[in-house]
């Protein structure tokens, strides 16, 4: 029996009378892209915050590669192998794209208390970072400050930083957000190549991307998962149609 | 230690608290509504004291001096807001700290230029001279009781202003979402100038009423400013209720601490040592209290909920 890389069991979070997360159970298996879709207000952000560690759950467990990470800080979870991207790009704006990815490489190496070697002459940081930038297609923009990159390029940089962490699981929060059709197609093609490196929990609104990429889809409505299955299962599920897809399927 | 001594010190503590409340209310309002750290607040306290002392000396009337202190402090505040503070709202706290630090230098030296380096003196007005009897054999100065009364009135007035008037409503709205009220058509710039002037007037009032108890001199506002910052941090920045409770807490703790700590320490060491160490400990006490409160409630006792 293959163990899931990420296992969430009966997660509950309430804000006063509102149960934003109402007993969510889902898992992420190795080598898969598991998409999480749902209408606005379904509680996707709240769920992401809890998985990543920026919000504490009321009850329920979160396991990464079998280890219970529910009580760990966000930084510790990242070190344990949970990588993520942000819905609104969150970068070090003054640093170049290269320095941003180098920071991620440095974080993966666990060496942030090094005081004496200048990073800009450290090939053990520069080379891996450039290689990743090459992969995502940003190598000719490497020296530009992140604040000067275009929106699409910043989304790519987010992905690059997540890749640099060599995480066990990736949580991608609406990577297509704000991308035009061209950019979305390219990014979709790129994400397709990633699933063997690290399974992806993909939170998305862009249905084309979801149907193209997902091995499994879970549908989140009012804090609960109302359906989980393959693309075809979900397309045909009447509850999902009513709640969410409407005329899309 | 007698009851009357304890009672006297308790009243002193309340009086100090009231004076700190006048300072802190303005400070917290300015930070709450405009997001501005204002180190020059202590200078407006000084301006109020000097205005009162100067006008009282000129006219012989403390009451005219009091009116002058309110007017001068409010005017000084409004001018400073129009010329300098306006440009700082969008800046980070570091720039605000620096610019208002520069204002302290300007105000202090400017005042020294006008009035010289010697302190001015204010007399307690005849109406408020004398003392009342306390339980036990002691008496307590009428003037200090009057200060407590003024503080209570101001607290009531602020409560009514903030809670019951349209200006107050705009102030409260401004505290929770600055951008929004602009979009709703409230004249932000005038509102900010008004709030700043109001805060400054309160500081000036504090300076004026303390004038008869201590001397009026350049730099008198600085120790009070620091205490006011401790108060608003304890109370929750932006909360007037927090400023009141924080001010009373700080005033009473500081006063009673200075009384009790040396006495407490005489249990463990000889009186002269106890006096010294007790004095030091008493000075440090409110900072220790602040550190303890912040470690449990990092945003103070009554932080206002922000958007």
């Amino acid at each position, binding site marked *: 029996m293959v163990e899931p890389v990420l296992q969430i069991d009966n997660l509950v979070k309430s804000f006063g009378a509102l149960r934003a997360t109402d007993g969510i159970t889902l898992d992420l298996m190795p080598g898969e892209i598991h998409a999480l879709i749902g209408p606005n207000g379904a509680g996707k952000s709240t769920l992401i915050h809890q998985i990543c560690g920026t919000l504490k759950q009321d009850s329920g467990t979160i396991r990464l590669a079998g280890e219970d990470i529910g009580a760990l*800080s966000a*930084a*510790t979870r*990242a070190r344990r192998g949970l990588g993520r991207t*942000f819905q609104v790009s*969150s970068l*070090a704006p*003054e*640093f*170049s794209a290269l*320095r941003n990815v*180098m*920071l991620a490489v*440095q*974080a993966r190496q666990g*060496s*942030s*208390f*090094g*005081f004496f*070697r*200048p*990073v*800009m002459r450290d090939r053990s940081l520069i080379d891996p970072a450039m290689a990743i930038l090459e992969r995502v297609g940003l190598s000719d923009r490497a020296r530009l400050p992140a604040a000067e990159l275009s929106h699409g390029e910043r989304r790519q940089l987010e992905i690059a*930083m997540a890749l640099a*962490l060599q995480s066990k699981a990736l949580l991608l929060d609406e990577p297509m957000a704000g991308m035009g059709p061209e950019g979305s197609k390219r990014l979709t093609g790129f994400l397709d190549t990633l699933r063997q490196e690290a399974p992806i929990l993909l939170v998305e609104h862009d249905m084309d991307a979801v149907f193209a990429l997902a091995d499994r889809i879970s549908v989140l409505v009012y804090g609960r998962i109302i359906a989980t299955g393959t693309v075809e299962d979900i397309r045909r599920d009447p509850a999902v149609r009513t709640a969410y897809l409407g005329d899309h399927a | 230690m007698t009851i009357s001594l304890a009672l006297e010190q308790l009243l002193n503590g309340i009086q100090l608290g009231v004076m700190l409340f006048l300072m802190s209310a303005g400070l917290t309002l300015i*930070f709450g509504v405009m997001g501005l*750290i204002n180190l020059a607040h202590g200078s407006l306290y000084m301006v109020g004291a000097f205005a009162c002392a100067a006008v009282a000396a000129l006219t012989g009337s403390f009451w005219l001096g009091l009116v002058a202190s309110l007017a001068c402090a409010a005017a000084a505040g409004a001018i400073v807001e129009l010329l*300098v503070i306006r*440009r700082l709202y969008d800046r980070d*706290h*570091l*720039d605000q*700290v*620096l*610019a208002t*630090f*520069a*204002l*302290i*230098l*300007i105000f202090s*030296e400017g005042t*020294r230029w006008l009035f010289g380096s010697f302190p001015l003196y204010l007399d307690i007005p005849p109406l408020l001279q004398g003392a009342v009897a306390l339980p036990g054999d002691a008496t307590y100065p009428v003037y200090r009781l009057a200060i407590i009364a003024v503080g209570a009135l101001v607290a009531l007035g602020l409560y009514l202003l903030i809670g019951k008037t349209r200006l107050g409503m705009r102030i409260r709205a401004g505290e929770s979402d600055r951008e929004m009220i602009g979009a709703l058509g409230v004249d932000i710039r005038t509102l900010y100038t008004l709030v700043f002037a109001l805060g400054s007037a309160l500081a000036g009032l504090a300076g004026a009423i303390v004038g008869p108890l201590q001397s009026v001199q350049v730099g008198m506002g600085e120790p009070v400013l620091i205490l006011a910052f*401790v108060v608003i*941090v304890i109370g929750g*920045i932006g909360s007037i209720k927090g400023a009141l409770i924080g001010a009373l807490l700080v005033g009473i703790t500081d006063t009673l601490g200075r009384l009790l700590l040396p006495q407490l320490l005489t249990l463990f060491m000889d009186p002269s040592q106890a006096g*010294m*160490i007790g*004095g*030091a400990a008493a*000075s*440090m006490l409110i*900072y*220790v209290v*602040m*550190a303890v409160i912040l470690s449990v409630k*990092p*945003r*103070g006792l009554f932080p206002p909920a922000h958007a």
Partner: protein
Amino acid sequence: MVLTRENAVNLTLAVLLLAVPLIASALGQPFYVTLATRIAILALAALGLNLALGLGGMVSFGHAAFFGIGGYAAGILASHALSGEPLLFDLPGTAQMPIIWLVAVIAAGLVALAIGALSLRTSGVYFIMITLAFAQMVYYFAISWPAYGGEDGLSIAVRNQFPGTNTMRPLNFFFVAYAVLLAGIGLFALIRASRFGAALAATRQNEIRVAALGIDPYRIRLAGFVISAMITALAGALYADLNRFVSPSMLAWHMSGELIVLIILGGTGRLFGPLAGAALYVAFEFALGGLTERWQFFLGLILLGVVLFARGGLLGLLAGKTKHG
């Protein structure tokens, strides 16, 4: 090293700071040597703060505490060396600067660890206020300790010694201070370019991103805060020796404000910003002070002008925008 505009300005500043006392000494004007020494020491103090503030984004309004701890370390050790009475645990006092510096740096580091551990749990204006409060605590503690002068401060009868040179000669002491400053600048540059520096700068820019990468922002900031305190304390020890007097005003919040002023005047986060700022400040004080007793009024106006209109400080004006790369 590439000769960028900033590097050229930096080099000029370093050379000028060396040249002025050399010339002054040759002309028999020791006053200017002392002035230059004062610039060098204040620059070092501000450099320390710049590590926390400019690089790490921590607006500490309590660095006077560390400046003062350094000063008192020098004063206390010197007075025990003079009187022959042992300090704690039968350890003697000393008049040797290197040992004094070590003590100053360690003492400040420990205090900063405690203060930082608590303060860094807060942020924004609360952090500013709590660092101020802790510095006030240290101030009140110091002025109520009569064994070491209390409110009157502590004299250092004979300037402490540095092996191999007679520190009583103003020029020699200047060289010591200058060398320490250069070492400090070198250390700052090294740290800034290192992995730790990258993590610290990133934490200033976006702490959520840093945490998402697996770096703990709290620990990075704490380390930065402690190192910064140690550098400022070293400056404090030198300052006490310069004046042969430890004044409690070294611990006053005005001093904390002045240190921030020095950084802003010179340019926040710039390598030579603290030096430029210290030079400007001392020059203003001297030039304006010679003209009028009300010089602080004009200093205030100039400061206001800088904050409102010359945001990058002197180095911003001279050397243009920083390249981060």
